[in-house]
C-alpha cells in the first residue's frame, strides 16, 4: 500500500500543528463558532448530540495493521472503546473530547493517517473498490489513481470552499463496487482501442434529497489528463454552482440546470487552458505511486486446498461462513475474507478496540498486514490462503466477527442516525437491530438470498437508502420518528434509485413491513431470481398489496 515519503509526512504534520493552533484559538475565544465550523469540519470534526464526532480518512478504504492498531488505541484511550466504519470507507469516533482532538490527530499522523477533508464543502475522501487488486473482474487497479487524486485534492487552494461537499469515486473492475454513478464525479478506469489507460467520467450523480444518477461527461479522458479534467469540472462548479440554497448547491443541480451538453461544453472550454499544462500527469509519477501497490508475495498453491475442502465438508457452520463471507481471489489457493461488522448485538459497522487489535493481528498472520474498509461497513482481509481459512474463522467466530451473512438481508448498511447524528430525523440503529432480530434464522436468510437493505436517518442519505433494494429513510412527522420504505434501488452497474411504496411506518412496524416485503418476494420469485430481479420484473404493485392490503391500496388509487 502507499507509504508516506517525507513530503506526505510533512503535510500531515503541518496539518496537526495548524489544527492544534486553530483549536487553541477557538477555545480561547479568538475564533467564533461560525468561523471554527468549516475548519473543524475540514478536519472531520462534528459537534454531535453527545460529544464531538471525529471522522478519520481511510483513503480508498485501505489500512495497514499498524493503522488499525492505532485506531484501537484511540478507541480505547480517547473514546468509549469502539469505532464505526462509515459508508465512505472512513472511520468515526463518537466520543472524543474537543480539546484532545489535536492529540488524536498527532497520534494518527505517526501512522500516516489524518482527518483531512473528511467533511466540509471541499473534495472529500476518495472511495474505491474494496476488492481492488484481488478481484477476478478487475481490469485496472484503481488504488494508484485514488492516491494520485488524494494528493491533488489535499488542501487544493482553489476548491477549499466549494458550494457544497464534493465526492469522487473510482472503479477499475467490470462490476462497479464503488457506486460511481452516485458521486459528484464517478471515474471508471478503462482502456481505449490502443490499450491506453484512461477514464470514463460521470458527473452530477448523488444521493441526498434529490437522488440523481451521474451523466457521462466524457467517454474517455486519457490518464495524463485526469487531473486537469477534474480541475476544469471543479472550476466550473466552484464558479457557477448555486450558493443561495444549501439543498440546491451540489453539482448535480448545476448539471441538471445547464443540461449535460452545456455543462460539458463549459468544462471543455475551461479544460483547453489546463490541458497539457503542468498538472498533466507524468509516467514517472504514475510509476512512483503505482510502485506502492505491488502484488504481494503470493505462493504457488493448488486452486483447491485439500484440507480446506475437508473442513468445509465436515463443518456446516464453517461451510456457511465460507459460502457467504469468503469470496473468490484472482490468485489460485487464496481467498478474500469479509470480516463481518454486522453482529446483531452491535450497531452495523461498529467495531470495538479489542476487535480492531485482533483484526490487525489476523492481517499480519494471514493477509500481508493489510485490511480494507468497505462502504457496506465491513472489514476485509483480502489475501488469505485457503489453507488458513478455518483457523481464521475459528478466531473470528470467537470474536463475534464471523456473522455469516455477507450480502444477505441482515448485512445492512445503516448510518449512525438519531442515536448520534444531530442532523437525523429518526434513529436508524434500533431499526437495523430489530430487523436483524426478526431475521435471525440463517437458513431462512440463505433462502431469501442476495439482498441489500439500506437505512438512512435523514435525507442526507449517508445510509445509501436510495440504492438499497429495500431502502428505509427516517422522516419526521410532527416531531415523531417515521420510516419511509422504498424498493427497487440498486448499486453497481445497474444503479437505480428506489421508489417509495407508500405511507411511512412507525418504528415498531418495521420488522413486520420487511417480513411482508420478503413474503411477497418469496411468493412471486421465479427460478433463481434474486430479490431485486423480482422487483424489477413485477414492479411495486404486488409489494404494495402485500404491505398495505387490498383495501388500503384501492383507497389510495381512488384518491390519487
Amino acid at each position, binding site marked *: 500500500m502507499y507509504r508516506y515519503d517525507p*513530503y506526505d509526512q510533512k503535510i500531515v504534520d503541518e496539518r496537526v500543528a495548524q489544527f492544534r493552533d486553530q483549536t487553541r484559538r477557538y477555545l480561547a475565544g479568538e475564533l467564533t463558532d461560525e468561523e471554527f465550523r468549516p475548519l473543524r469540519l475540514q478536519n472531520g470534526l462534528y459537534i454531535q448530540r453527545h460529544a464531538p464526532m471525529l471522522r478519520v480518512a481511510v483513503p480508498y478504504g485501505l489500512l495497514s495493521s499498524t493503522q488499525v492498531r492505532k485506531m484501537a488505541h484511540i478507541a480505547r484511550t480517547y473514546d468509549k472503546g469502539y469505532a464505526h466504519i462509515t459508508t465512505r470507507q472512513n472511520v468515526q469516533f463518537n466520543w472524543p473530547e474537543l480539546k484532545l482532538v489535536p492529540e488524536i490527530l498527532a497520534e494518527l499522523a505517526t501512522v500516516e493517517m489524518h482527518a483531512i477533508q473528511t467533511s466540509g464543502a471541499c473534495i472529500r475522501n476518495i472511495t474505491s473498490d474494496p476488492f481492488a487488486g484481488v478481484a477476478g473482474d478487475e481490469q485496472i487497479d484503481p488504488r494508484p489513481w485514488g492516491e494520485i487524486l488524494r494528493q491533488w485534492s*489535499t*488542501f487544493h*487552494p482553489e476548491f477549499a470552499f466549494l458550494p457544497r461537499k464534493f465526492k469522487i469515486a473510482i472503479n477499475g473492475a467490470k462490476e462497479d463496487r464503488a457506486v460511481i454513478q452516485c458521486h459528484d464525479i464517478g471515474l471508471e478506469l478503462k482502456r481505449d482501442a490502443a490499450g491506453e489507460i484512461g477514464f470514463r467520467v460521470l458527473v452530477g450523480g448523488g444521493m441526498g434529497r434529490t437522488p440523481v444518477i451521474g451523466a457521462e461527461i466524457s467517454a474517455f479522458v486519457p490518464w495524463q489528463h485526469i487531473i486537469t479534467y477534474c480541475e476544469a469540472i471543479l472550476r466550473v462548479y466552484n464558479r457557477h454552482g448555486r450558493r443561495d440554497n444549501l439543498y440546491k448547491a451540489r453539482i448535480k443541480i448545476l448539471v441538471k440546470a445547464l443540461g449535460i451538453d452545456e455543462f460539458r461544453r463549459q468544462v471543455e472550454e475551461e479544460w483547453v487552458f489546463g490541458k497539457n499544462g*503542468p*498538472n498533466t500527469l507524468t509516467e514517472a*509519477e504514475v510509476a512512483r505511486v503505482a510502485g506502492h501497490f505491488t502484488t504481494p508475495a503470493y505462493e504457488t498453491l493448488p486452486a483447491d486446498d485439500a484440507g480446506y475442502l475437508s473442513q468445509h465438508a465436515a463443518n456446516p457452520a464453517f461451510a456457511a461462513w465460507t459460502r457467504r463471507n469468503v469470496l473468490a481471489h484472482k490468485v489460485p489457493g487464496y481467498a478474500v475474507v469479509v470480516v463481518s461488522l454486522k453482529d446483531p448485538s452491535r450497531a452495523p459497522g461498529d467495531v470495538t478496540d479489542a476487535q480492531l487489535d485482533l483484526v490487525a493481528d489476523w492481517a499480519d498472520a494471514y493477509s500481508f498486514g493489510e485490511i480494507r474498509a468497505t462502504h457496506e461497513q465491513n472489514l476485509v482481509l483480502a489475501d488469505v490462503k485457503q489453507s488458513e481459512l478455518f483457523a481464521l474463522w475459528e478466531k473470528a467466530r470467537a470474536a463475534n466477527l464471523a456473522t455469516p451473512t455477507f450480502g444477505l438481508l441482515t448485512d445492512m448498511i445503516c448510518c449512525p442516525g438519531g442515536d448520534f447524528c444531530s442532523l437525523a430525523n429518526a434513529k436508524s440503529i434500533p431499526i437495523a437491530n430489530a430487523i436483524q432480530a426478526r431475521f435471525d434464522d440463517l437458513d431462512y436468510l440463505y433462502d431469501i438470498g442476495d439482498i441489500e437493505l439500506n437505512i438512512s436517518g435523514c435525507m442526507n442519505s449517508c445510509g445509501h437508502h436510495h440504492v438499497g433494494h429495500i431502502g428505509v429513510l427516517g422522516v419526521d412527522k410532527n416531531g415523531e420518528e417515521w420510516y419511509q420504505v422504498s424498493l427497487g434501488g440498486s448499486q453497481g452497474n445497474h444503479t437505480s434509485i428506489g421508489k417509495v411504496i407508500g405511507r411511512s411506518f412507525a418504528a415498531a412496524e418495521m420488522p413486520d413491513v420487511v417480513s411482508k416485503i420478503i413474503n411477497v418476494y418469496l411468493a412471486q420469485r421465479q427460478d433463481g431470481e434474486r430479490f431485486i430481479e423480482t422487483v424489477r420484473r413485477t414492479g411495486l404493485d404486488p409489494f404494495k398489496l402485500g404491505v398495505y392490503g387490498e383495501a388500503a391500496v384501492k383507497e389510495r388509487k381512488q384518491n390519487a
Partner: protein
Amino acid sequence: MPKIIKNGQLIDDDTRILILDESQAPEELTLAAGPVFVPFAVWQAHSGQLSGRADLGVWLDSHEDVAELVPDLDRIAAIALNFPKFTDGRAYSAAALLRTRYGFKGEIRAIGDVLRDQFFFMQRCGFDTIQPKAGKYSDAQLEEALASLKDFSTPYQAAVDQPEPLFRRAQRAA
C-alpha cells in the same frame, strides 16, 4: 493607519473601499480624492475618466465575472475581490483566472470576510494583498496571523504561487 498584508509583510494602508448604497447611481457619483477601490459598476460608468489613476482600483463581488474586466486590465492598477462570507470560495477561482489566464500583474487584494485561516489558500491562488475587515484583527493579531501564510511548506498541487505540482518540483523517491 489600518494595517494590511502585502507580499507577506504588514504595511499601513488607508485605501477606501467604496460601497454604493441602493440610492446611489454609479453614473452620478463624484469621487473624492485619495486611494480607493470602486465597485465594478462605477468603473464601467466612469472608466474613461478614472483609468490611469494609480491610486484607484476596482473591486468585484463574488458573483461578478472577472472576464468582464479583461478589456480594461492594462488600465487598472489593482483589483480587489470580495468575500461576502469567508465560505464563499468563488474569489479563489477569480484570482487564479486573473493571474493565469488573463496575465494580470497588478495587485489582487482579498477584501470582505477575510480570515487568517484562509490566508494560505488566498496566497496560493494569486492574492498578493490581504485586507481583513477593519477591526477584525488587532495589529498584534495580524502580526501573529502572518504565520498562517506558511501553514504548509510544500503543497502537493500546482497553483499560482507554485506553477508546478510537487511531482514536477521534486524528485520523490519511489
